[in-house]
């Protein structure tokens, strides 16, 4: 009591209660956040443990053999690589140009708002619907048939909204003062974009594009009807092993391969299924790490 009298800053009961409440809220939010790490770690540990017997260099470099009960995953791996590559070649320029238009040129009118709404909604379309859209639009209507190109187009449509959105965000992060300074010197909007805005946002744009690699590599539904095939004869060595599929060929892909060997095929060793999944997850982590590295580099360089 005397102590409290001596201390003019002693906490009142109300303040003590508020402090207790704060402690409780902090601990519970902290606990829940930490819990988030558990699934990620569990999945990775479980996958590595289960796939350990199969994981080897040969598992990656050899084609599936003996009705997929031996060999490796080279054919679907290289198929996924080309799927991602072709879809990005299609989606990145379109998405970046659209993002530049929407952020730098478009006036705020009903048409712009409608386009933005369309982009947001496109991002929310389930991937199986993208797959059916690709089947109708590219395979049948445009007559591409089921092939790498049709599947890449479908995946490109799916990844477009995120590329557009991340491009817009990267451009918007360039301070307006730079643009105004350029315009005041008599630069056209395009000169401003080319000399000031793009050089200062290119890392952010690339980060957005790279993140889409992971998504394009992982999706099964969009390629299910548009070009993926169960098994394809791929050369074991030489040029044909590196470029086994043309744009008009059907192809194998990791995600579809995993689906097939897990549900449709008999006698595939369990470690092969987990091995395929582990390689996919490994790819995603690797690609995301590159993109995180980009982001760190970008932040370290930014001085405004």
């Amino acid at each position, binding site marked *: 009591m005397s102590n409290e009298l001596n201390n003019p800053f002693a906490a009142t009961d109300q303040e003590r209660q508020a402090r207790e409440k704060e402690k409780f809220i902090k601990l519970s939010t902290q606990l829940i956040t930490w819990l988030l790490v558990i699934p990620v770690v569990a999945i990775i540990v479980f996958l590595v443990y289960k796939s350990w017997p199969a994981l080897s260099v040969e598992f990656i470099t050899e084609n599936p053999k003996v009705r997929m009960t031996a060999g490796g995953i080279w054919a679907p791996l290289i198929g996924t690589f080309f799927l991602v590559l072709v879809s990005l070649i299609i989606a990145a320029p379109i998405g970046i140009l659209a993002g530049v238009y929407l952020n730098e040129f478009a*006036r*705020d009118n009903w048409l712009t708002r409608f386009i933005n709404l369309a982009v947001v909604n496109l991002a929310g379309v389930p991937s199986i619907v993208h797959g059916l859209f690709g089947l109708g639009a590219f395979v049948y209507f445009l007559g591409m048939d089921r092939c790498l190109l049709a599947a890449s187009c479908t995946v490109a449509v799916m990844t477009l909204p995120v590329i557009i959105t991340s491009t817009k965000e990267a451009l918007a992060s360039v*301070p307006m*003062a*730079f643009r*105004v*300074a*350029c*315009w*005041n*010197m*008599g*630069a*056209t909007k395009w*000169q401003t974009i080319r*000399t*000031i805005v793009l050089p*200062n946002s290119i890392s952010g744009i690339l980060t957005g594009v790279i993140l889409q690699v992971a998504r394009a590599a992982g999706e099964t539904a969009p390629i299910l009807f548009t070009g993926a095939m169960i098994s394809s004869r791929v050369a074991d060595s030489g040029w044909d092993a590196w470029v086994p599929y043309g744009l008009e060929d059907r192809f194998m892909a990791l995600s579809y391969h995993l689906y097939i060997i897990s549900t449709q095929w008999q006698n595939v060793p369990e470690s092969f299924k987990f091995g395929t999944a582990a390689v996919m997850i490994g790819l995603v982590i690797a690609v995301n790490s590159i993109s995180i590295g980009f982001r760190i580099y970008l932040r370290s360089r*930014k*001085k*405004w």
Partner: protein
Amino acid sequence: MSTDSKNMNTTTENGLPTILPDLSAHQTEGDVDRLRLIENGQVIPAVIHEDINDEDIILEINKLNLWYGNAQALYDITFEVPRGKVTSLIGPSGCGKSTMLRCVNRINDLIDSVRIEGDMIIDGDSIFAPGVDVIELRKRMGMVFQKPNPFPMSIYENVVYPLRIDGVRDRAELDEVCERSLRGAALWDEVKDRLRESGLSLSGGQQQRLCIARAIASDPEMLLLDEPCSALDPVATAKIEELIQNLSGDYSILIVTHNMQQASRLSDYTAFMYLGNLIEFGPTYKIFSKPETKETEDYVTGRFG
């Protein structure tokens, strides 16, 4: 006590009731409150000192009205900016000084809702005429803002940027312009050994002088300065002020400032604005020592604003 003003009989032209028989006679009447009339939406003819008639004019502002959407921001602004001198725009916040400045290089065009009536004539050419290319117009003006905004590139590239967008590639020409502009902006001695370093590595005052160097690189006719010192410390401010005085003569300078000491130190002419109206325009020493309107006197002596 010269109370003559060439704008004195424009009241009826403005379509206003002629309840203001002779505003400049406030010293005798004493209780015509222009500020309250302006607040009530009246357009008050400005008091223009005759001294401007003896000057060589670079920019004529003629009955300029400006609206942001439905809100009018400038009312019938009419005055002339002398060539090779420093003209400052003063007035309380929101009086339209910066808006006025941004009309000169038509940077307001970038705001969709802006509508402008009236005209500005630079060297005999209308700024708002249909055939005017804003890109060409802006190349004849150099503008410097409140906050220094050098580009995130080297000091050298910052200065020669206006030439770069014109497609100049000749190294010797670029080098020459870079040195001349940096010398002009009194920055050369401080940065000549580190032209390759980022413009953002400079101090605030140096960055602002870099921006001035960039603004004069394309050899403009006018320099528009929008509170160029308000983000700087007193030492950097003194350097910029000295620079502005050195630049006058070669350039016609229009400067917006909140700092009345700065306006009185720097400028040859001063325009006092209030709520989008020009109240008084004349030689700086007259505006600050013997203004013709009571409102200007109240403002420059710190009694309001």
